[in-house]
């Protein structure tokens, strides 16, 4: 009896005193290893009489279990302490800055273009594109600008020198040439596939892109962006045009109703022609859309001129429809409060960071336009 009690006391003390896992392991080997003190005792059981074994067995086994449990418990405690110490040593100063990261931005004009496309896509408009270098036919003649007509002069056209075919190409003064490329029946120009080509009516497209006029001041830059719209069907009238533009403006400016005003105007390629104004307030320095007692012109539009339809091989007694043209940069300036058109093209990183949009601000029916 005493020998076991004595042994247990010694082992318990050794376990408690073990300073680390290695020392504890030495205690375990000394007690429970092959030649350990408890293992040696267990070996004696075999030589005992059944009665003696019945008496000593439980005592020795009990000792083994208790010492084993004590070692396991101590081991867990030592490991936890070691981990704590390791973690404490791993502390870093998290007030230090992360490596510098650049902030990427989508240009506001491109964001606005995406917003406009999203709204028109919802109304069933597809997207068509055309080239920036255009011929006279698509930019002027087919759009009912007769040769030498004064309306051409109003376009401040950029000209290229005479080409091999003796023609002077222009930088397109508007996105309207893509109307022609889309409506013109039976064309067989060999052009890259991204350039719009004949569609059979009904047609419903928007055309975003770069446009050029030889003009430069606070509100004009030699390059800017337009978005053309074209709807051709059998019974499309000016009321449809009005609904389309009113609906667009309300969705774009994200206000339930924007009061609008249609005024007669003149464009060679539409008849009747109009400009649409929206209510605005100029009293506070910057322009607020949708309120106030002033008007702001935001889009030119009209019913496609019968001559334009004829020039494209469409019979104006069968097909009719409307066209409109927005200034994309200008709409962006109005919506997002950018004061100067010229800044749009100045590539100042401070401006881009301030007025630009996150990569994740893609217009989406669930999250809204921006």
């Amino acid at each position: 009896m005493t020998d076991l009690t004595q042994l247990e006391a010694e082992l318990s003390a050794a376990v408690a005193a073990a300073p680390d896992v290695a020392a504890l392991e030495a205690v375990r080997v000394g007690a429970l290893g092959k030649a350990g003190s408890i293992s040696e005792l267990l070996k004696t059981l075999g030589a005992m009489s059944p009665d003696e074994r019945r008496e000593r067995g439980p005592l020795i086994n009990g000792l083994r279990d208790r010492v084993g449990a004590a070692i396991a418990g101590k081991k867990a405690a030592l490991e936890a302490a070691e981990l704590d110490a390791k973690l404490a040593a791993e502390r870093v100063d998290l007030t230090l800055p992360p490596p510098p990261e650049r902030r990427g931005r989508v240009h506001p004009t491109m964001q606005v273009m995406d917003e406009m496309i999203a709204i028109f896509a919802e109304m069933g408009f597809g997207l068509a594109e055309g080239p920036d270098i255009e011929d006279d036919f698509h930019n002027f003649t087919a759009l009912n600008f007769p040769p030498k007509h004064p309306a051409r002069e109003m376009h401040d056209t950029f000209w290229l020198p005479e080409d091999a075919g003796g023609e002077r190409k222009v930088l397109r003064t508007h996105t309207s040439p893509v109307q022609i490329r889309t409506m013109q029946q039976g064309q067989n120009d060999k052009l890259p596939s991204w350039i719009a080509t004949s569609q059979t009516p009904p047609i419903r497209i928007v055309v975003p892109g770069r446009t050029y006029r030889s003009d430069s001041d606070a509100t004009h830059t030699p390059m800017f962006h337009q978005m053309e719209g074209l709807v051709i069907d059998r019974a499309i009238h000016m009321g449809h045009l009005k609904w389309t533009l009113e609906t667009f403006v309300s969705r774009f400016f994200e206000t339930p109703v924007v009061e609008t005003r249609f005024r007669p105007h003149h464009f060679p390629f539409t008849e009747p022609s109009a400009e649409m104004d929206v209510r605005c307030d100029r009293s506070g320095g910057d322009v607020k859309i949708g309120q106030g007692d002033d008007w702001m012109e935001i889009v030119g539009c009209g019913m496609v001129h019968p001559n334009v339809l004829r020039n494209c091989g469409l019979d104006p007694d069968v097909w009719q429809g409307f066209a409109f043209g927005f200034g994309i940069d200008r709409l962006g300036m109005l919506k997002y409060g950018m004061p100067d058109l010229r800044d749009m093209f100045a590539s100042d990183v401070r401006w881009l960071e301030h007025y630009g949009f996150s990569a994740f601000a893609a217009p989406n029916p669930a999250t809204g336009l921006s």
Partner: protein
Amino acid sequence: MKFTLSWLKEHLATDATADQVVDAMTMAGLEVEHVENPAAKLAAFSVAKVVEAVQHPNADRLRVCQVDTVDGRKEIVCGAPNARAGLTTIYAPLGAFVPGSGITLEARPVRGVVSNGMLCSARELEVAEESDGIVELPDTLAVGTPAAEAFGLEAVIDFEVTPNRPDWLGVAGIARDLAAAGLGTLKDLSVAPVPGKGPTTIEIRVDGDACPVFAGRLIKGVKNGPSPDWLQRKLISVGLRPISALVDITNLMSYDRCRPLHVYDAGKLTGGFIEARLGQPGETLEALDGKTYEAGPEVCVIADGSGAVGLGGVMGGESTKVSEATTDVFVESAWFDPIRTAQTGRTLGITSDAQYRFARGVDPGFVVEGLELATRLILDLCGGEACEVRVAGAPPAPPAAFAFDHAYVRKLSGLDVPSARIDAILTALGFAVRGEMVTPPTWRRDVDGKADLVEEVARIEGFGALPATPLPETSRAAGGVLTVRQTRMRNARRAMAARGYAEAVTWSFMRAAWARLFGGGDPKLVLSNPIASDLDCMRPSILPNLIEAAARNARQGFADAALFEVGPVFDGDQPGDQRTIVAGLTAPHPSRSWAGAGGDPLFALKADLMALLDEMGAPNLQIAQGHAPTWWHPGRSARLQLGPKVVVAEFGELHPAVLKALDAEGPMLAFELDLGAIPEPKKKPTKTKPALQLSPLMPLTRDFAFLVDQATPAGELVRPILGADKALIADARVFDVYQGKGVPEGQKSVAVEVTVQPTEKTLTDPEIEALSARIVAAAEKAVGAKLRS
């Protein structure tokens, strides 16, 4: 163009205010630029008469006046020395805002006497800069007359005329439209002929090419001098300078009836004839603006026996101009071709009120009537005796009648306008309506079809009445409306922004010298009329613009720009020669970081490009180094290509000499990706993706260190390794490159981690050994690599 309200009212019987006129003009299609309306500012002020003026009981310099005003008799305290009984002056009621002093009048006692209003000086009303005492007006003005009227001030309406409506370049034409729009009644515009006495002895000849019709008449015995006050005031009010009665009459006709005329001193015309013909080579003319013009064979000149005396429809000549000494005047009323007149203006660089009008097209039906009206004015203002009218040539044919189905108004505009109303509108605008047939008036040469008539009806009826009508539903493309290319452009933007690049939008043109540095600058692509000499050439590349932008940002203190642009470049001068490029540029500056320096920033740029290509669905591309165009650093640039011919992208460090030429501090790293060179995926009937095969077997990795020639690209070592067993080798990645101690001179050690993915069963050690041997053999065969021992 400008006009005043009273001028308009000479042709339009109306009570409309300036604001109402402006609104009606706007809704009829005349764009009002600006209204200068002194009446608005002076609305509260009116004429009053001082009945009695006595000394203020408590102030030496003040008078207490009894004043008859629009509001009855008022007691008003006034400090002006000229406040005296019997004076007709201007009264401001209580509550009025006095613009010149910036105060609003209140009933306040002045030294114990309450002043019930104020008598005003010209400076207080802002009708003069300086004034001495209160306004003194003629006694003939009635009490209550608005101040603006008393001063003869009127609203001046300044507006723009669209090129289709030259008839609006005369006040009478505007009156006609406003009457049709319901703003008033058009007064009689008809002209009574003035019978002539004796023939006009100057023969008129026309060359129809130069001038279709030329009417003229001689008026003898006139006395030319300053025109009367009313005419001078009228011209001044619209910004014209009075010259002499004869000239002022022609200007009045231009602005009132859009009928430009010219007056010649008949005594200075020689040869007994006047003719309109095309100019002859070398023929010159000293015009009234004092400049000498060369009239080529495309220009219409007016000539007499001495040669050119005027540029037809543009400007008269110095030699035959009228003066105070003129006694006999020859008046020209002709119709010049719009296109020829516009061209003359352009080629000679000359404009005038007449040129502006003829270029847009004046009324060919008003040539003789205009001459009659001018005759009447000359006889009235200058006296004299008119000879008979002579006419040479004939005006162009009047517009032809065409059929107009009234139902078309509704079909095209959506407006429901009763047939009788349609007829009434057209008639009011001067159209002749006979049943279904409509004839436009001579002054509406812009109208030649039924859509034009719909516009006339709709704008007079008012665009406000257009019924907003939803577009019919259409079948939508189920997969969205954008093409693959359009989607890629959009994704490219968002991918670049997500990787930290700011999107720039730069000009499509650039300095030709810069274009030449980037493989462009062909004279075919240099604009004939650039806006500035540094924006003259269509760009062959986006990079110069991004370099310039980064350099500009650096000069402003923001040196580590990362910019990108998605836009066009131009390979040739035809519409099909345009490609869409995604270009990115970084100006890396070694960032000082507590965490230590990063790796070579060129590989960060390569990672961005690879991520972009992946986002756009590009297939695996070959990388080729050593063939870069001259604007790249020869050792630090490469291209990505699809087969040997299709270059999808180029990237690298920009050549320092090129940066220097663009005045930019290097280094700068960049790429250009040709969007159109990435093949579009084949359209599949379904969006279902192929089934995913996940191996239950653990992949394992083995490392190999090879010795290769120093010049061997690592990529050429990796390719044969990947090919050594396409079924088992999932990946091979270079993780270390070493030169130096332990590696023979001229060689480098490249360490590659190969990932092996067993497919059917776990590989045994001998199988792995065999695979390793194949890898080593493949590397050796391809690039002579030796396994490093």
